[in-house]
């Protein structure tokens, strides 16, 4: 069984699965249970400054999006940072860390954008023995309206400034958590790096309204007839998060900056994908909130099995393996030609591929009287929609054509050589191939 021990910024944990700063990590009771279940580390729910704690709403905090069989695909929340006294949290963190020295304990912090506020809290956090801190520059609701959370994360200069204060007043690793509610995630990541951040973590939650109650005309979750945008997370946000992680991983300015990947990680496979796109570890929240802490066992066994099968002996070996293959559209090989192929033995004859192709795509699937569905190569552009809508995994596959074969759609011979848009004759800005 592959060794999943992870060293992230010098912080060791038995596996790369950390619980993200969120409701599951708000208190000692939960965190102890998480560690007992096998989680490699936690990011303690965000602490605020000394003084009366924030208050939460007393109605629903979460809204959801479902797939078939009410499988939770997306969750949003309007919960704020911890609403428990700072002193209580610090005592609990100290106790838990002492009892679980082999697990990663990171403390999430969000205090006002004033140097003194950070100067006040950092020594107290350091005194807990925690392994590092995460700066919550991502929370999109409630706190951002008070000039914290995403309000900081949306201004690169503030990120850089606060990060610098933290590096000045705290001697352990500083992770900057980024908000996705911006246009170019590379900018805040670069700012964090300039401020001296040891790592970035992303994504925080996305501004969202999950549903509208059509009787009361209130957005959900509804508090006495009114709703507010909340932070969206869960499996639905994974593609957005992975794109952002990859952008930071392959950006020359931030290349090499450690990343803690967050966003809809539900299975070992999701985790492996984030890691391959440059994450040094991953943080999980919604999956635990949906299924409980036990899911980490599947994540551990699955990642180990896959690594064994692939011959990887450490998580580190996997980190960033897919990054070189993330490119810009203009560099994709236009000489690569594929065709859909339907495996008739696996086909259950539902006809969804036909409906999708006939109604919304390229009329490249034929349907016979006995419901045999077959691809018309002369029409197929290999768009993959049939694969995506087929209920049976791997029933429809995309088969690459071999160089020298004639594409019946274009009548052209498939070329062996790579050629992209930058040199394509239809591109007015094409440059001559060298």
């Amino acid at each position, binding site marked *: 069984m592959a060794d999943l021990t992870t060293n992230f910024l010098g912080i060791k944990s038995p596996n790369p699965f950390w619980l993200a700063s969120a409701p599951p990590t708000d208190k000692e009771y939960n965190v102890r249970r998480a560690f007992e279940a096998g989680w490699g580390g936690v990011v303690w729910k965000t602490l605020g400054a000394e003084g009366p704690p924030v208050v939460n709403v007393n109605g629903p905090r979460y809204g959801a999006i479902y797939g*078939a069989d009410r499988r939770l695909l997306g969750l949003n929340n309007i919960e704020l940072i911890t609403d428990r006294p700072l002193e209580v949290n610090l005592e609990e963190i100290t106790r838990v860390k002492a009892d679980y020295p082999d697990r990663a304990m990171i403390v999430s912090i969000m205090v006002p954008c004033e140097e003194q506020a950070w100067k006040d809290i950092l020594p107290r956090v350091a005194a807990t023995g925690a392994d590092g801190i995460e700066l919550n520059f991502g929370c999109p609701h409630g706190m951002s309206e008070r000039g914290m959370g995403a309000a900081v994360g949306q201004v690169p200069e503030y990120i850089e400034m606060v990060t610098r204060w933290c590096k000045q007043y705290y001697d352990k690793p500083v992770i900057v958590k980024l908000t996705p509610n911006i246009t170019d995630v590379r900018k805040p990541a670069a700012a964090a790096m300039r401020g001296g951040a040891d790592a970035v973590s992303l994504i925080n939650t996305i501004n969202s309204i999950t549903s509208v109650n059509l009787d009361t005309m209130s957005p959900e979750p509804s508090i006495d007839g009114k709703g507010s945008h909340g932070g969206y997370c869960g499996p639905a946000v994974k593609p957005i998060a992975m794109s952002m992680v990859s952008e930071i991983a392959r950006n020359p300015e931030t290349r090499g900056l450690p990343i803690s990947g967050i966003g809809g990680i539900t299975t070992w496979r999701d985790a492996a994908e984030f890691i391959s796109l440059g994450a040094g570890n991953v943080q999980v929240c919604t999956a635990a909130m949906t299924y409980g802490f036990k899911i980490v066992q599947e994540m551990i066994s699955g990642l180990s099995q896959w690594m064994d099968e692939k011959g990887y002996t450490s998580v580190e070996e996997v980190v960033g393996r897919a990054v070189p293959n993330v490119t810009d559209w203009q560099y994709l090989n236009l000489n690569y030609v594929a065709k859909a192929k339907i495996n008739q033995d696996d086909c*259950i*004859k539902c*006809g*969804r591929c*036909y409906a999708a192709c006939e109604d919304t795509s390229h009329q490249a699937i034929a*349907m016979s009287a006995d419901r045999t569905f077959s691809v018309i190569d002369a029409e197929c552009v290999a768009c993959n929609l049939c694969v995506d809508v087929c*209920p049976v995994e791997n029933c429809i596959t995309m088969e690459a054509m071999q160089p020298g074969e004639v594409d019946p759609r274009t009548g052209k011979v498939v070329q062996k050589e790579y050629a992209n848009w930058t040199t394509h004759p239809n591109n007015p800005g094409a440059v001559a191939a060298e």
Partner: protein
Amino acid sequence: MSSPMTPGIAAARLPAEILGENFGDLHAPFTPHEAAVAADRCYFCHDAPCVTACPTNIDIPLFIRQISTGTPEAAGKTIFDQNILGGMCARVCPTEDLCEQACVREMAEGKPVEIGRLQRHATDTLMAKQRHPYDRAPETGKKVAVVGAGPAGLACAHRLAMHGHDVTIYDAEAKAGGLNEFGIAAYKSTDDFAAREVDWLLGIGGITVQTGVRLGEGISLGGLTESYDAVFLGVGLGGVNVLGSAGEDKDGVRNAVDFIKELRQASDLAALPIGRDVVVIGGGMTAVDAAVQSKLLGAQNVTIAYRRGREAMSASTYEQDLAASKGVRLMFNAQPVAIHGNGAVREIELEYTTDDGSGLKGTGETVRLPADQVFKAIGQTLTTDGGLALAGRKIAVTGAGRTSQAGVWAGGDCASGGDDLTVTAVAEGRDAAMDIHATLMGSN
């Protein structure tokens, strides 16, 4: 109080509460949660095979999607648009041979979407919630006679009334409903559903029902064709085939359909006598319905004896399994040769059969089974043909139920073509109505 062991024919073999349980819904209705889970399994297939398999062509993927998006009433309307008796069909259709057999998830996983139960969920919801969901077109002034208030006649009458025609239904029985009311197992139509469905269907207006009127006794086809602009015959199969075995006239030997009818109309099941040893002759749904209900009434030993092999049985595998699960013994390749007893039946003698490809033959070897009652379920026959041309033993029809006589249509079990199923009868009644409408309005 008697028990299953009480010799002879006896009432009250089981306590009332057990009888109540035994004759409760065969399939309990879905709760909304169960319906949501079941509906989520539908793939919304293109040109879906389940629709093709449905004799009434209900748009099944659409109605299931309507359930899954929280509008079971709209789902009910989708069903009734094609099949106004969709409520009964949801209960009695052999879905395992029709839509659910065709379901792609049956092919994929051996577990089809539970279309029948979802259909019941939708139709029950709409019927419970709303007044009759269809409005009549302006009156056309045309009058149509429908003979037979079974599934074919009711479906025909409803569609005609919807198009503004004035319909009179004649039925020989004291109640409308036909086989829905008299001919199917009680556990498939609980809480007087057949009668409630007829009342609901008649809510369209424009339909008059005259019960206790039999074709050939008081009304004639000739008279009807003179008085009405069109006539639809949905008279079913009123006769029962005879065994032709010695002793068939002994007490305790009766037609299964009569037993089922008596049971369906019984106000107190505990008062209904049943034999300790019951033998049902036949291999169709009627045989299964009679056998299972005998068992549920408390008969100690119930046997279905069928002269051919299991594969030839017209009752579906599901029905066979249902019978077996209730404790009915299925005996194959055994045909009755004699019924023994002094006045009343005591034993039935069966001869084993074989079929080497040249037709069914007795082997000469016989076996005797104790029998207090023998129910004959070896098929029904047409008793009322109105002098129309026949195809085999049924009224010959072409197209949408056109008989050999202009102005006379026929559908359901009495007409040629199609399976003898409720859902087929509904389709034929509906389609004949559309053809009658087109003919009367001069667009044919």
